């Protein structure tokens, strides 16, 4: 079903086209009284609700009040002017990731992960790899079609290269939290160089690094395939692996 549009300029819909109705709830740090309700209406007015109806107010604890406000907004939205930043790979569900690997790779996809250098902060790599995951998303271990080897913390680059070879890694995931004296950048460059030396170009595993202080645009400069910054979830990483190792290669091959 496609949404009924009355042209590229729209406003919210309550029960009549063009009524602009929205609902809103929020808490203000004041006890509930007449003045508090006035404050809530003032906020609603400043947010562009005109007229605003305060339909519910309830004090929470000592000094807070929760409000529900309905009202009509004056704002118009120009749909033709909406700009969307597209991710350069599709976000897949665990099921879709598994299906893509099973059907198109026809074997388990091997992922080797580690914290390299002296970095002992495994929070990042564990959040991405451990089943426990992060933010309600399961880690890569949860994906049936991925074979995950988590080497843990303080892994030397030669050991990582050796493990990647033994596990026939399709992808190597490296997490770097410590940034003292740009350690994360040095370590990443060292790791990338070692993999280039150890593997012929076509057989080299995909190199992915992650950490809260990386600039996602530096991948090429550091010699890796992809950088993930703060707030990355396992699903994004899994989707990227499918994109880079399966979908894109098929396109290249075809």
């Amino acid at each position: 079903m496609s949404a009924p549009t009355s042209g590229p300029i729209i406003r919210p819909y309550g029960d009549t086209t063009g009524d602009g109705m929205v609902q809103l709830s929020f808490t203000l740090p004041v006890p509930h009284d007449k003045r508090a309700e006035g404050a809530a209406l003032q906020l609603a007015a400043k947010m562009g609700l005109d007229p605003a109806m305060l339909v519910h107010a309830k004090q929470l604890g000592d000094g807070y009040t929760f409000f529900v406000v309905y009202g009509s907004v004056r704002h118009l939205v120009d749909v033709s002017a909406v700009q969307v930043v597209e991710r350069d790979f599709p976000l897949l569900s665990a099921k879709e990731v598994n299906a893509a690997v099973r059907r198109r790779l026809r074997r388990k996809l091997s992922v080797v992960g580690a914290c390299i250098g002296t970095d002992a902060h495994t929070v990042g790599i564990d959040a991405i790899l451990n089943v426990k995951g992060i933010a309600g998303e399961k880690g890569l271990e949860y994906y049936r079609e991925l074979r995950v080897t988590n080497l843990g913390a303080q892994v030397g680059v030669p050991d990582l290269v050796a493990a990647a070879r033994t596990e026939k890694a399709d992808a190597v995931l490296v997490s770097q939290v410590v940034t003292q004296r740009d350690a994360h950048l040095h370590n990443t460059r060292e790791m990338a160089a070692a993999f280039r030396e150890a593997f012929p170009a076509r057989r080299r595993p995909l190199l992915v690094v992650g950490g809260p202080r990386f600039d996602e645009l530096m991948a090429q400069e550091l010699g890796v395939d992809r950088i993930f910054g703060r707030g990355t979830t396992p699903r994004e990483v899994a989707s990227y692996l499918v994109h880079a190792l399966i979908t894109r290669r098929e396109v290249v091959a075809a």
Partner: protein
Amino acid sequence: MSGSVTAAGKLDLDPAVVRTARRLARKAGGPVVELARSHTTVSVERAVLRLAGVTGADPDGIPWVNRLVDAVTADVGLGHGVALPAFHALAAEGVGDLTLLAQKAAAGSVRFAVPRGREATAARAAARRSVGAGLRRVDRRRAERERLIRRHGDPPQRPWIYLIVATGDIYEDIPQAQAAARAGADVIAVIRSTGQSLLDYVPEGATREGFAGTYATQENFRLMRAALDESSRELGRYVRLTNYASGLCMPEIATLAGLERLDMMLNDSMYGILFRDINPIRTFVDQRFSRQVHARAGIIINTGEDNYLTTADAVDEAHTVTVSQLLNEYFAHEAGLSDWQLGLGHAFEINPELPESFRLELAHALLARELFPQAPLKWMPPTKHMTGDVFRGNLLDGFFNLVGAMTGQGILLVGMMTEAVVTPWLSDRDVALQNVRYVLGAAGGLREDFVPAPGGFIQQRAHRVLAEAVDLLERIVDGGLLTAIAAGTFGIMRRPADRGKGLEGVARHEPGYYNPATELLEGPVSARSAGGRVGSAAAANERPVR
């Protein structure tokens, strides 16, 4: 209350099948207990030192218990236990106390040896005296809790209402916890910082920085317990405090919980193995010791079966929850915990799009209730099928609360409509508590009327889950629990016994291994003190729902 219709009668379970299930759980768990009895870990030994009074950390924040265990291990290995070498060195060096000894050992000025003959006897006596003093502190905390419960009273209703705070800063957590208690929470859980479970030491002091949670430290425990004591006085009911005895430092955290009068601890027999890739042997050894401490401290454990359902399908894998509950029960009893201390976990995680999902939830929840009639089951809210649609989420939470009321759950973790969206706002918590209050107020006594039709959908479903659980237990008994874990029987994780984190911190007992804490915890004193509690607490547990 339900009086005439006992919970055990509602599903018409075959008592022979229930007995078989328990017998199989015992058979599956037995070899693992043997393994736990013949091994020790760095964290068990550090817990012994904590009971013996070692406190504090070096300037880098590494606790003295770690430094001392590392120093002893470097000289004589871990397999003799730390007590004999440490107390022998204490006497030989003429050092005043163990913390000083740890400092000298860290500086490299002490050599450790395993004492023999009369020296061993002396070290053994000194260790036992010192650890005994620590256990008496735990006993005093327990008596203090019992006194405060008598003074302030337990919550007027079952289930107890369990709320989470998690700011990362203990000084922010405190006012939030007190506000939550005022708003109706009976149990406050302080979520730990992400990643603490994989730290092989317990951080020290009050902490103000954590990732999506607050570090479990002795000082944070003490600060929060003191704050909730204040709230208990103000509210006229004893507000319980919960934390997490899990991860690599489980035995130490259990010990600190006992020393600081925490009331409940999350403590699952297999969670660390499956979800944190901690070595299975490390986990089972640490588990047994921490459960013995919890038993002694009068702490209610909460097990983690809800986690299975977040990774596996809640209908297809319902029986794995039952199997895990039975194993958790066996391991808990073996370690000396009483039924009233078993907050066995389960969760409302069936896909709401599935036809009859609510009836399936009722069947599963009632099955747990009937299998473990004396345990204060921990009922966990939906998470997997919560979306950004907070309106639908609030409805799901209402149905979750209703199952909790209808099946007599003991501890209800309050579900938030913003589960998948944000860490709960003040208003989210209020909406959630309003939901709980409405359901318990409107239907709190419905357990009395709720008797599933004989041979009907709910009974059949419960029978089927129990039968599948027995099948799975049989398969586990055939190959052994460790093999089952290695083969990925639980969840989908394969966890071989020779892999996983923390394995390097495990040692087989050498001849003459000595652990004064285990000796005292398994001794007749603890049995007597635990036995004395069963009656009164079990009675409290049978308190009518409203």
